[in-house]
C-alpha cells in the first residue's frame, strides 16, 4: 500500500552514515542492553536465537553422528538421550517459537502498523530479559548433567524416574513461555490499538495477519503448558503426585494438558513463516497476493482450529476411540487452510514478473518442503495408519519438513528479504542463492530417507537400531552435514554484510509496503512525518516507476 507521506521523495535523504538511524544513534553497550526501541530489541533477539540455534544444531550433529552406525558406539545411551533432549528443547523453546515473531515481528509490527513503537516498549525489553533468563535456566540444566526426558517431558518418567536436571529445564521452558506470552500480548495490543489512520484491518499486510494469529495462539496456549510444567516441577521437588500413578495420578492427563499447548505451538512456529512467504512471493513476483482475504482468514482459521486437534498425538495411548475419531476429523480440517494458502501463492506467481533473488529461492524451496510436510501429516491424522507410524522416524521426518523445511526456510527468506531494511546494506546475492539451493537439497537429502526408515518401523529416540536400517541413517547423516554447511554460510556472509555490505536505497526490491517507504536503516522514530494509509496493500500499479 502506498502511503502519502508528506516528506520529499526519500532518495534525497542524506546517506545513512550522515543521518541518525536507530543503529548509529547511540553506540554504548548500555544503550543496546537497555534500549526501548523495538528495532534494537529485534537485533538483540536475532543474536540470542542465532546462539541457541547453533547449540541446537550442534546437538543435532551429535545425534546424526551417533546414528551413522546401528550399534550405539559414538555416545553412551544416556549421552544420546541428553543430546536429543537438548536438541529438542533448544530448537523448540529457544529458537523456533521466538524466531520470526521476536525478530522480524519486533522490527516490522510497529512499522507496518504506522506507529513509532510497540504498545508497551518496556514490556518488550522485559520479554527479551525473561527469554534470556529462561535460557540461562536451560543452559544450567545442561551444565548440571543435562536432561534426558525429551522436549516433551512425558511423566511419569520426567517427574519420578528420571534423575537428571529436569526441574531446571522445565522451569527454563516455563520462563521462556512467559517471554512468548509478553511478545504475543504486545503485538496484539499494537495491531488492535495503534494502527495509523486509514489502516483498516483489510489493508494490513498478510505478515501482520500471520503475526496476529500467532499472538492469539501464544496468549491462549502458553499458560496451559506453563502450569503443566509447574505441576511437573512440584511433583519432582515436593512429591505432589499430580501425574504419579502410584499416588493415583494419571500420566494421560499430563499428555492432554501438554499437547493442548504443544500442538498450537507448532502453529506458532509455522504461521509467521506463512506470513513471510506471502510477503516475499508478492514482492518477488510484483503482484498483489491472489485471494488476499482468503489467505488472511486462513491464518486466523489455523489459529483457532489448532486448539481442538491435539488428540492426534495420543491415538495409541489408550485414548477412547470416540475422542480419537473427533480429533482425527478436526486434524484433517486444519489441513485445509494451509492448502488454500499454497494454491493462492501459486495464483500470485501466475503471470508475475518473478525475480530469482535469494528470498525467492528460499520461498520456492519453502513451497516444495511445506507441501511435503503438510501432506505427510495426512498419514498421521488417519487413525488407521497412525497406529503403525506413531513415534517412528516418519513422525520425525514429518515435523522436520514443517519446522525446518517450513519455518526455518521462511525465517531465512524473511531475513534476506528485510535485511536491506534492517541494516541498510545488501547481502552478497550469489552466495545467498547458493546457500538457498544448497539448503533445499541438503534438507531433502537429510529427511526424505527418514520417511522410508520410519515406515520400516524405526522408533524415535533410538540410539541403536537394527542393522537393516543403516543405509537410510547414513544417507540422513550425510545430508545433515550438507545442511549444516547451508546454515553456516548465511551466518557468515550476513555478519560480514552487516558491517561491510554495499549501502542500499530505501526500496531495493521496489516492493509495496509501509516498511519500504521509510529510509533504511530507519530512524528511531520510524516515520519522519505522520502516516495516512489510503489504499489496499500490494498495489503494484501498471505505470512504470
Amino acid at each position, binding site marked *: 500500500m502506498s502511503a502519502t507521506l508528506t516528506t520529499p521523495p526519500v532518495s534525497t535523504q542524506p546517506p545513512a552514515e550522515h543521518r541518525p538511524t536507530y543503529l548509529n544513534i547511540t553506540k554504548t553497550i548500555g544503550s543496546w542492553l537497555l534500549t526501548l526501541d523495538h528495532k534494537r530489541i529485534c537485533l538483540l533477539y536475532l543474536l540470542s536465537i542465532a546462539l541457541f540455534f547453533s547449540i541446537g544444531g550442534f546437538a543435532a550433529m551429535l545425534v546424526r553422528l551417533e546414528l551413522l552406525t546401528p550399534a550405539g558406539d559414538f555416545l553412551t545411551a544416556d549421552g544420546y538421550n541428553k543430546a536429543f533432549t537438548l536438541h529438542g528443547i533448544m530448537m523448540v523453546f529457544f529458537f523456533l517459537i521466538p524466531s520470526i515473531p521476536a525478530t522480524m515481528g519486533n522490527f516490522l509490527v510497529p512499522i507496518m502498523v504506522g*506507529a*513509532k*513503537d510497540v*504498545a*508497551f*516498549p*518496556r*514490556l518488550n525489553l522485559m520479554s527479551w530479559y525473561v527469554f534470556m533468563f529462561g535460557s540461562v535456566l536451560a543452559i544450567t540444566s545442561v551444565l548440571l548433567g543435562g536432561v534426558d526426558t525429551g522436549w516433551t517431558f512425558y511423566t511419569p518418567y520426567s517427574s519420578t524416574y528420571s534423575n537428571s536436571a529436569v526441574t531446571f529445564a522445565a522451569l527454563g521452558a516455563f520462563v521462556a513461555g512467559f517471554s512468548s*506470552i509478553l511478545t504475543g*500480548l*504486545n503485538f*496484539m*495490543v499494537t495491531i*488492535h*490499538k*495503534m494502527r495509523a489512520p486509514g489502516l483498516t484491518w483489510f489493508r494490513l499486510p498478510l505478515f501482520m495477519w500471520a503475526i496476529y494469529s500467532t499472538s492469539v495462539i501464544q*496468549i*491462549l*496456549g*502458553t*499458560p*496451559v503448558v*506453563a*502450569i*503443566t510444567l509447574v*505441576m511437573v516441577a*512440584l511433583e519432582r521437588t*515436593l*512429591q*505432589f*503426585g*499430580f501425574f504419579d500413578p502410584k*499416588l*493415583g*495420578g*494419571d500420566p494421560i*492427563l499430563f499428555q*492432554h*494438558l501438554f499437547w493442548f499447548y504443544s500442538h498450537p505451538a507448532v502453529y506458532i512456529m509455522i504461521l509467521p513463516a506463512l506470513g513471510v512467504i506471502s510477503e516475499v512471493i508478492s514482492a518477488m513476483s510484483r503482484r498483489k497476493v491472489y485471494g488476499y482475504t482468503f489467505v488472511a482468514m486462513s491464518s486466523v482459521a489455523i489459529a483457532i482450529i489448532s486448539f481442538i486437534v491435539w488428540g492426534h498425538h495420543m491415538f495409541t495411548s489408550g485414548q477412547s476411540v470416540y475422542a480419537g475419531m473427533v480429533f482425527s476429523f478436526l486434524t484433517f480440517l486444519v489441513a485445509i487452510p494451509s492448502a488454500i494458502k499454497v494454491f493462492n501463492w501459486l495464483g500470485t506467481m501466475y503471470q508475475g514478473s518473478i525475480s530469482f533473488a535469494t528470498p525467492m529461492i528460499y520461498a520456492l524451496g519453502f513451497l516444495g518442503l511445506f507441501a511435503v510436510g503438510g501432506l505427510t501429516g495426512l498419514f498421521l491424522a488417519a487413525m488407521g495408519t497412525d497406529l503403525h507410524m506413531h513415534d517412528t522416524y516418519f513422525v520425525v521426518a514429518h515435523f522436520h519438513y514443517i519446522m525446518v523445511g517450513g519455518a526455518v526456510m521462511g525465517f531465512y527468506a524473511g531475513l534476506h528479504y528485510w535485511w536491506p531494511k534492517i541494516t541498510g546494506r545488501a547481502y552478497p546475492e550469489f552466495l545467498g542463492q547458493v546457500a538457498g539451493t544448497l539448503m533445499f537439497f541438503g534438507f531433502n537429502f537429510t529427511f526424505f530417507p527418514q520417511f522410508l526408515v520410519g515406515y520400516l518401523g524405526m522408533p524415535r529416540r533410538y540410539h541403536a537400531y537394527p542393522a537393516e536400517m543403516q543405509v537410510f541413517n547414513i544417507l540422513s547423516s550425510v545430508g545433515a552435514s550438507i545442511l549444516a554447511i547451508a546454515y553456516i554460510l548465511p551466518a557468515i556472509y550476513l555478519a560480514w554484510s552487516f558491517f561491510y555490505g554495499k549501502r542500499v536505497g530505501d526500496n531495493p526490491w521496489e516492493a509495496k509496503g509501509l516498511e519500504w517507504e521509510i529510509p533504511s536503516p530507519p530512524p528511531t522514530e520510524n516515520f519522519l512525518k505522520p502516516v495516512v494509509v489510503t489504499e489496499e496493500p500490494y498495489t503494484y500499479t501498471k505505470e512504470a516507476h
Partner: protein
Amino acid sequence: MSAQSHTAESRGLAHHFEDFNQQLDASTFGMWLFLITEILFFGGLFAGYALYRSHMPEGFQTASSHLNIFLGGFNTVVLIASSLTMAMAVRSCQLGDNPKTRNFLIATLFLGLVFLGVKVIEYGEKIEHHLVPGPNFDTSIPFAQGQQMFYNFYFAMTGMHALHMIIGSGLLIYFIVRAHQGRYHSNYFGPVEIMGLYWHFVDIVWIFLFPLLYLLGLHLGGH
C-alpha cells in the same frame, strides 16, 4: 505503561501514544489479554482438579470435610470487601482525588494481608496434621490416596492464588506511594484501573476456589 512526563497537563502520557484515550485503551486491553492468560493458567489446575475429583469422589469429600469452613467463608467475605474497596479506589482515582484513592488502596491492602494471614493459619493447621502431600503425608487416614490428591490441588491452587495475592499486595504498596505523591489525575488513572482489574480477577479465582475446595462434602454433613 506511563513513561517520563514533561508538560503538566500531559503528565503520564507515553511518547509513542497519540493521546490519553489511546494509552488507556491500549493498557486496559493489554491487561485483559494478560487476564486471559491467567484464566487459562488457573484453568489447567481446575482441569486436573475436576478430573481427579470425578475419579476419587470419596477421597475428595473426606479431605474437604477437614477444611475449616468458617475460615474459608471469612476469607471469601474479606476478599469481596477488598474488591469493593479496590473498585472505590479506582473510582476516586478517575475523579482525580489522590488522597481518597490512597486510603482505599490502603484498605484493600489491609484486607489482602488479613486474607493472607488466615491462609497462614490454615496452612499451619495442615502441616500440623501431616496433611501436606509428600513423604510425610499421613497415609493412615481413610481414602488416603484420594485425600492426598485433594491436598495436592488444595496446596497448588490456594498456593498459586496466595502467590498472586502477595504480588498484588506488592503492587498495591507501589500504587499507594504514587497516589500519595498525587501522580494521578482525571486523565491519567490507567495504572490504578489496571491494578483494579488484576485484583478483581484474583478475587474471582477465590470465588470459584471456595465452593470447589471448602464446600465439597457439606451436603453429607459431618463438619
